[in-house]
């Protein structure tokens, strides 16, 4: 057991749970999705990515890859939101669905990441 393992492990899982919190709700109704939750999801995901940097193992590389996918999805989701709000000046159903489903994609990447992480933990002898 070491501090770094606890930190990174908790952030991997937190990235998934917070993301789920934002994703949960009617996809067409943006009022059911809190922008604070999206912000938290982005930050936690970025931190999880950084924690995976520099791991030379094969698993480390795959974890980093899934994490980067989640980041891209979430940042895209936030960008769509800002674009719809300020440039189009109207958050219609299409935009709302895009925002939520992009975070849904990120959630899938998070789930893959957590499965790999748990699998590795089970595989290790101690």
């Amino acid at each position, binding site marked *: 057991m070491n501090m770094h393992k606890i930190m990174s492990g908790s952030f991997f899982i937190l990235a998934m749970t917070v993301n789920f919190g934002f994703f949960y709700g009617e996809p067409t109704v943006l009022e059911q999705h809190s922008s604070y939750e999206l912000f938290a999801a982005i930050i936690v995901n970025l931190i999880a990515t950084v924690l995976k940097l*520099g791991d030379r193992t094969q698993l480390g590389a795959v974890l980093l890859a899934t994490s980067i996918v989640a980041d891209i999805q979430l940042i895209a989701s936030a960008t769509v939101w800002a674009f719809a709000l300020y440039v189009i000046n109207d958050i219609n159903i299409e935009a709302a669905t895009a925002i939520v489903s992009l975070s849904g994609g990120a959630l899938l990447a998070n789930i893959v990441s957590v499965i790999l992480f748990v699998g590795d933990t089970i595989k290790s002898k101690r």
Partner: protein
Amino acid sequence: MNEQIVWIVLKRLRTPFLVIIITFAISILGLVLIQGTDNNGQPYQMTFFDAFYFVTYMASTIGFGEAPYTFNYEQRMWVSFAIYFTVIGWFYGIGAIVSLIQDEALKKALNRNSFRNHVRNINKPFYIILGYNGITKSIIDRLNGKDYRLVVLDKDDEKIDELILENFYPNVPGFVGDATNQKMLKIAGIHQKNCVGIISLFEDDMVNSKIATISKLLNKKIDIIVKATSKAQLEHFRSMNLKHVKNPFDIISKRIYYGITAPYIWLLEMWMYGHILKLKKRDQFPRGKYIIYGKGRMGRAIQEGLQKAGIEYVIEDFDSQRYIKEKNTTIFGDDDDIKRLLKLGVKESACIIAATQNDLLNLTILNKAKQLNPNIFTMARENSLDDLNIFQASKINKIYIVEKILADATYSYIARPLADLFIQEARKKDDEWAKVIVHMLNNITGMNPMYFETKLNDANAYALTLRLQKGENITLADLRRSRANRNEMLHVVFLLLKREDEIYLMPDARMNLKIDDELLIVSDEENYDDFEYIVNNIYELEYVLGYRDL
């Protein structure tokens, strides 16, 4: 960029990235939560985008002003906290990246990469030299860029710095690395097709042996030129099938043997290493009793040479380190020492050899002996090249510098294979034969001729190979005609001809030449230039052969 470097960089960037993300996140969140006032005095809430935009230019100290509306005091209080918070985080991040660039581990990885690339880009055949010191430097000086390129590995980074400061042209790539580590040898290009050999001349026989074994396993095809100073080691290398074992003490032993028994063979050998082709009186080894001071590897090698030559000698077991410790001086010659010298018979002896490991002791031993017997012939071992001037000034008849002998032998093996071969063949002959050769060379080419090695192929003898390809018979005598007047002779002597595995010492002038014959030619620069013209230029060759007139 190499994989490894990417990982080092990423790992180091973890903390700076974390710091930047967290400081940004907290500042952004604060701005979003605090209620602002718009231009009409109405309360409003900053969105995440507004906050992100503002924090981004605030943290990087660009500072476009307060947006979207002028801030109220609550916001300003938060922002003044956030400025310190994010700016410090941001600067820490930049600082970490800058220090990463200067990081030793990263630098090393980058250096290794560039070294590897340098080695990969060498397109000539090259040797790997292990250890950079006086010996290998003099090898590099003479060998670099002619037909070969060189690569250096040394454990000590100061040595590699020295190498870089030398500014060899073409560049000699060097890298800090343990030569006994096979990974380093691989990086130095031992697997490369154009790697012809590895030169390992370390003091320590064990290291040499280890390197020879590893290199042999890594690449069977390369030449391993290795130093061995003991009999057992020599046997070991022979059993490993290494042909090119250099033992400087063995060379000295042989030189002394030939110097005494066959001075002209000795002269031919020394001439190959830059001596003039004339036996001076002070060069001649005297006959009579020899005294050897020092019973180390050098002393024993000399002993062996003298024994073979059938010369009477005494060997004094003289340990320089013990002497310095006991007498607390490096000046030889108190009363005890003089008594000892007299007892060894310095007055009746013909020659004294100082072969200890201390240069100053060697000098003073010879000085004392000279005082006691002014006619005595003196020989000294010189251990470090730095003391060369003192030795030259002190009128010693012969100086043996182990480092230089080793460097010469290695160089001549690599760059002058025919000269090396010639010496070996000459040693099988007797002194009368050598005397005839020396006189003949003196008559034709003068007192200080040079020697050249050439291979009769397309690149070196274009015109000649054209004619030989047509099946024409051309003899050595044909090539010895002057291109100014074909009835006169060029001042060249063909000492040796090598055809595949056959060696012809002093080849017959009527001998027909074949393509790819290798020739050892003695001449001066002017005549050799003429020779090169003749074999390369179609018209010159036709004139010399008598097919056309001037």
